[in-house]
């Protein structure tokens, strides 16, 4: 299992500051909540932590190694869900998850089991044969989260996972994420939901408005 660290990470374009410098560490089996007002740079920070964006200052590390999306091992370590993924309109919800699990080496029945388990955990088993365009916005959000949970990872990064979810689903999601933490994953979430943060996070970091 791995730890993730932000060391004076910042981002700006020309003189426009997108993220003021921030430092923290989330160890294996620990969850950290990133909080802040709109525009404080939460999503930017998560994109940097997941290797989707290069910081203009500082550096993000996984187990002491700089985060680099180009490295296969790094891609295997981090599972990030920032915004909705690129769904395939021709695949059902279950086929999506089975395909993703297969690409991460869960072959044959193992992929099917992973898809079944993840859908059951999030309470969306009944949606297995729906195409993405047949899902409500909340159901789409749950399938989106499932794409991050159906694959193996040591670091889980979620951006406002509570969006569009009702109270029951938020509790279900918190339970699933706690299971990941108990398994030893390091979790970083950005959230505006106090309930979600209290249910999941061991610590939190507040971003200054940039």
């Amino acid at each position, binding site marked *: 299992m791995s730890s993730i660290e932000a060391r004076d990470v910042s981002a700006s374009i020309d003189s426009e500051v997108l993220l003021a410098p921030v430092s923290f560490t989330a160890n294996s089996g620990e969850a950290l909540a990133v909080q802040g007002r709109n525009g404080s740079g939460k999503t930017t920070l998560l994109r940097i932590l997941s290797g989707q964006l290069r910081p203009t200052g500082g550096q993000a590390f996984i187990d002491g190694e700089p985060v680099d*999306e*180009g490295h296969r091992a790094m891609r295997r370590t981090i599972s990030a869900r920032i915004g909705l993924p690129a769904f395939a309109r021709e695949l*059902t919800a279950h*086929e999506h998850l089975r*395909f993703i699990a297969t*690409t*991460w080496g869960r072959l*044959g029945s193992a992929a099917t089991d992973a898809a079944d388990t993840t859908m059951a955990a999030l309470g969306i088993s009944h949606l297995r044969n729906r195409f993405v365009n047949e899902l409500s916005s909340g159901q789409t959000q749950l399938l989106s989260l499932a794409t991050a949970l159906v694959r193996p990872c040591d670091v889980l990064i979620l951006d406002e996972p509570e969006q569009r979810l009702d109270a029951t689903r938020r509790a279900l999601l918190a339970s699933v994420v706690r299971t990941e933490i108990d398994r030893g994953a390091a979790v970083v979430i950005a959230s505006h939901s106090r309930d979600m943060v209290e249910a999941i996070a061991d610590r939190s970091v507040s971003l200054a408005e940039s």
Partner: protein
Amino acid sequence: MNTSTDRQILAQSRSVTASRAGLPTASDAVYTVYVAVLIIAIVAVPVVRSIVLGLARPEILATIVTPDSYRGVGVIAAVLAVGALLIGRTRGPVVPSPFLTEFLAGSHLARSDTLRRPFMISVAVLALSAVTVSGIVVGARFLGGPTSAIPAALIVVGSIAYSGVLAVLWLIGQSCPRRTTIPLAIVILGSAIAVGLGVDIVMLATPWGWLALLWESLGSAAPIPWWPVIALALSPLVFLAAPALLNFLRGPELMAQARRWQSIGTLVQTGDIAGASGALRTPPTRGRHYRISFTGPMPIAILRRDIGSARRFPVRIALGSLALVVAGWLNAQTASATDGLDWVVALVGVLLAYLAAGVWCDGLRNANENVGPSSLYGRGALIMICSHALLPGLACLLLGSIGVIAAVVGGAPIGVLPWWMLVSVFIVLVRILDCAKGPMPIGLLLPVVTPVGDVSILNVIAWQADALIIVLTTAGGLSVLFSTVGPGAAIWLTAGIGIVAALAGRRIRALGA
């Protein structure tokens, strides 16, 4: 994880998508083959045949087979290499769907494995294009007179080999940063100039030079030069770099291209060509601190706004400006072009002018998007649109005139200058007409049953390309007429300006102005 496990994972991943519900049936596949055969037989073969016959005409073939034509071949090949390098960041050879980009290329599997298939498809498309183009040109030479078979075959094979070089350069353009590809492009451009001047060492040392030397051997009685043959035969070795380049592709950049091209595909399918070309325009990254002044009367304020925002796209504006100069020069050359070539020169000139004017039309597009009750702006649509048309109009008039004046200095008649003014006005009006198009009428998608199948696609194509058709037939055709009958053509073009202006006004009103 070892390679065989990776391959197993990749194969099983593909089997998941291959076994999905709603796959095309056997009858779907048969229909696709039927349509492909019909298109080849009814469209492709006659088009290729007419191009070959056209090129084989003595006056055109004389241009192709001049003793120095090999230099032109080398320059064209080098410019293609530069284009391949520079276009990679906008549209690389590896653009899988966003879904496969996120979940297959984004997996732990090596990108040299997961992205090999889309790359090989691009390689195949390039090779097919090379065979077609070289086959057409070599075919024209065969028809035009005695030509040796072996050099002709070597040129076709050499073109395929060169297409492999282009594919790898294209991949370099996609995977490497601009700070690497731009200097490389400049070096290739420099070598293109050297090839154009016939510098031997550059001819012998570059793939574009090898292709040029092969072309030279086609027209000479001398033995076939061995070096370009061997060098091009060995050039597929460049594919050894492909796995490393594929692994060097960055996920976010792959995703950006995948999303952009998926949305372009959707927009084209729905007939929204303007939206599709808008998706190709990357958002600005510089010039945020330029202060744009909005003082003065509304047309002047809007002109300032458009000039200020154009400064934020220096490369696009520079290329568009250069293209307008070339377009003006080409238009002025129509009269001096030999019979048969005058049509080509005129059509290419006005097409280039129309496309280049588009880089100055961002404000015009925005004004058209804001026609109607929900407009952001407090002025009438006609005032806004006419004011935003000032900048593309000035750009066409001034920049195109530079090219026209250059042609006049070179011997073209002075009368081409006022003619270009009329062409400029016409082109800007067609731009307004095109911007005010609105969504495609759904009725155009209704099936049109004929003995050869549903031809409703022709309606869609005609609707999508109406502006281009108007520009080519009117401005292009009348430019040829002007070169022969003179002022009489100006009367026709003035009438065309009036008609297009009326049509544009009608479209704007139809949008709810």
